[in-house]
């Protein structure tokens, strides 16, 4: 079958999402170009306790993993719930997008997305408290990701702010 061109109809899972890294250096066109040829995935919604080993076990099932970069809290240097997985080939990364995205690891449904390629510094959370931005204002209690959002006080109703 590999000799047949698979039409776009069957390529939804590897299409680019609407997310773009706003700190990307270069035009949006450059970013898209990189994303379309990238072999690196961003992996989100991990538990803070999920290890590199576990990620490797799951992601190596779609191909040879070149490296895994664990996302760390800027201040505490501990895992903060995301990572980058880099493969040797585009094809293996595509397979991970197809078959791992939205399945479970450590009892959580993880999310994978294309990443334009790891640059030093990106391993750190971008939230003001050091973790990921999404963990700043989160209102639910998520024990796998450090309980409540860092800036959410459950005893006080927090209105504005919303999700960044």
């Amino acid at each position: 079958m590999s000799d047949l061109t698979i039409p776009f109809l069957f390529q939804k899972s590897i299409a680019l999402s609407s997310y773009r890294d706003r700190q990307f250096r270069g035009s949006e066109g450059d970013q898209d170009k990189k994303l379309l040829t990238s072999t690196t995935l961003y992996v989100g919604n991990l538990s803070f306790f999920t290890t590199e080993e576990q990620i490797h076990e799951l992601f190596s099932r779609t191909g040879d993993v070149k490296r895994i970069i664990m996302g760390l809290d800027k201040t505490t240097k501990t895992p903060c719930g995301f990572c980058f997985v880099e493969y040797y080939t585009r094809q293996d990364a595509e397979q991970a997008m197809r078959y791992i995205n939205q399945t479970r690891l450590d009892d959580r449904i993880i999310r994978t997305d294309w990443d334009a390629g790891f640059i030093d510094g990106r391993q750190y959370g971008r939230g003001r408290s050091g973790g990921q931005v999404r963990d700043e204002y989160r209102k639910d209690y998520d024990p796998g990701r450090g309980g409540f959002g860092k800036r959410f006080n459950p005893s006080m109703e927090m209105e504005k702010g919303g999700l960044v």
Partner: protein
Amino acid sequence: MATKGGRNRNGGGGGGGYSDDDDDDFHNKSQQRQRAPSSRHHHHHHRSDRRHVQQQNPPSQQQQQQQQQQHQHQHQQQQQQQQQQSYDTNKRRKFGGLDDDELTEDKLQITLLSLGQKIDSTLEQTLRDLCTTLCNDLTKHKKIIFGILNQCIQLLPERITIYSTLIGLLHASIITFGSDFIDTCISSLKECLLTYKFEVIQRYIRFLSDLINVKLISSSSILKLYEILIQTTTETNIPQVRTDFFVSCILVSLPYSGKVLLEKHNTELNRLLYTIDKYVYKRSKIHVPILQVWTSLEPHPQEEYLDCLWAQIKRLNQDEWSESQIFRPYYTYADTLFSDISASIVHDLPLITIPIHNDTIIYPLPKIVFRMFDYTDVPEQFVLPGAHAIERYLIEEEISNIIHTYHTERKDCAIQLTQIRPKNKIPLNYMIVEVIFGLLFKLPRPQHLELFYGSLLLELCKLQPSTLPPVLVQAVDMLFERLNTMKTSCIERFVKWFSYHLSNFQFTWAWQDWINCLDENSESPKIKFIRETLQRCMRLSFHQRIIEFVPEQFYKLVPNKPSPIFKFEEIDPPIFGSEYAQLLTKKIKERAAAEDILRTLNTVPNPTKDDTSATTTATSSSSSSIINQTTNDLTYNMVQIDLFVSSLLWIGSKSFTHSFASLAKYHQLFKILIETEEQQIQVLKSMYEVWPNHQQMMVVLVDKLVKTQIVECSAVANWIFSSELGSELTNFYVWEILSSTIEKMNRQVEKYHNELLDLRRQLNISATVQAATHTSDIIPSNEPIITSHEEKISDENKMDENDNTPVNEEKPTITNLKRRRESDDDDDDDENNDEKQSTEKIQSMQISQPPMDEATAKLHEKYEIVEERLSHAREQQKKLYLIVFQRFIMTLSDFLNECESKNVDPVSTPWLKWIIERLQEIFLLYHEQVFQYVSTFESLIFTSDIDFCILEVFQQFCALRA
């Protein structure tokens, strides 16, 4: 998975805890490590673009969607167009929008490829409307339309009758359409025949057969086509797989054409069937056992695929070719298709010839039919068609076609599968599960990634949370009960799938149901299965999690905690080298330079020179003092390696990344310390001593060691069969290491092979360019390509060409580098020779020919270098397989001898099963590579003096291409 014990989890809501998969990160309330069983995900439905696309046809929302159905098609198109826009941004940017033709092509492609994706009452009208549209577009876009229609035939075999209906309608509307369309199809088929696209050839023949039902092709000419195909049974000196393929083309087509042929050409049909019968009867079946999933034929025979299909066709013939499973929409257009007026233009197929055989053609491998259920396994309200009922084949074929078509989109794939409408109370879920396991266990290899089948089963569980999981549970139990005779490769795939599946269902399983097998021999397949499953579960979670989910009785099968062992840390009694290990670990922690570490290693007293410490090291009491001296030097060096590797891995034991960083930092030191294969094996032994409880760590470490060329593939193979690892040989991770090592070797060969093809292509291009720009000084535009090749080549033999770990950066820091291997020298010399040779060649060419430009000369040079590399890599590959097979034979023969001396029947031991089936696995997994060297293996190692149970594996393997 809802298990027998824990089905309550999905009890109430349709989606259970699983319907939240499209929630994005922001709203996913997640669970704790020590999760309370009742904790659920919150459902904040965040409407994202992705979710919107997914909503095309979720079955759970069918009712709400009924009103929308008329709009759905249009709606779908819009969405798909959007989808394409986001996918194809480059195209759009580059050209600044599409012109009319491109728009039409896109629109038509979407419409035609999604035709009949959902079969409902609107299909009849859709087909009529589509026919009208296409009739209007045909004059202007004939080429495009024909192209897409051919694409549909090639890509969507599960919907061919819908396409043949559409073609029939077009044929009835436009007088010239039929012959034009046949011409396109036939030229495409001929092309496939010449390029050996077997799968597509079969699809075309089946499609053409169906065209007799819409009166486009004459039944007599289809019969003629079959007669040409059956001619291959009379050919001599050709492999059976060739004839098998062409006979199978007829057999898969007959359910579509049989009825018409019976009515119009009864005699010829019978003659054809008689010839097939004779052929099927006389076929050789040596290849069958190596392809079977179970070694036992109970309870299901696992028939050879052609045998089974022939039995089904014979039955269909007895039933006068009436079946109820094929969806035949053309019958609803009787007024258009079968009226007297249109019936007058039936076309004959032009003559098709089958290219004669040559030895380079690789035909499709034979298959067996995987069956795990029969009618007694399904609930009473269902009737599972018997093994030789054509319905069984037709539904299985439809299921596997859909899986194949949609394999890149697991969610769509699951939806399409649940939309199959089987007739006559057929238990669809049982058949889906059976086909999926059949594909997963397929030998030699599954067609798609194993993980795909697992993720597809997850999607099916989500779509049908109350009906599918029970079938899956039943299947797992049946597979578990049949483990004793299941092939080792299949057990391994079963373990990998099951652990993955459990990890997606919080490891909920009725473990207590398996308690009564716990008394079995620790090497027995069931025990091994549980042990390996728990091992894999641990790799996906963590040790404590396993302890929590298995009953206490299973604790003895739970893997050890995956912690490192530092033997030098043991104080009582202190072992030789402990004090140096202390020093080394301290230095490594301080990130000392490699020279510093080397100095420390050199302070370790040499036992041969210092007799006081000699007692603790292994010594050989050889009579020759010279040999003794070398042996001792070697032993001394081994102690150094052991100290270094153990300390390094111990310090880096925190994570994979830490370990890799340690290896990278001291890469050059490795190169200094390690030269011979024995020394490489010592590295592996030391690693094993640190990490015996962490299989995954060993897998990734060996991978890194091979990629960074600290150890060679052959050293890994020899280590695996060494006595130190003897007790581990039945454990699955050992074979994971061997496979991954062999694959790296294969990839290396493939890489050079591709580079060579690429260069060959460039040389052709540059020759053309040169001719064109003969008088000009401008160097053709392929210069950047050359530079990139220079870089590639300077990479030399690196196993891991893209690995940018700081390995290379440290290279200059140590100057007194020893050469690591002889082959490295060879390589360098070769390179120099190559350079000289190619320069000479070029000079000589310059005399007789017009001057070749610089770029082309460089290309020629590169070409020869890569050619040399390839042949070197091929040699190494061959050597690796030789080592592996030789070690297999040695290990197996030793075991058989031992059994004989102890008067034990080897077949009764699980050990023989685990090892001999691994040998089988190596043959099967790498059959493409092994076949290249098969005559060498036959003459050197698989000779008649080895035990028959080993030789038999080789013979069955050879029969795969016979």
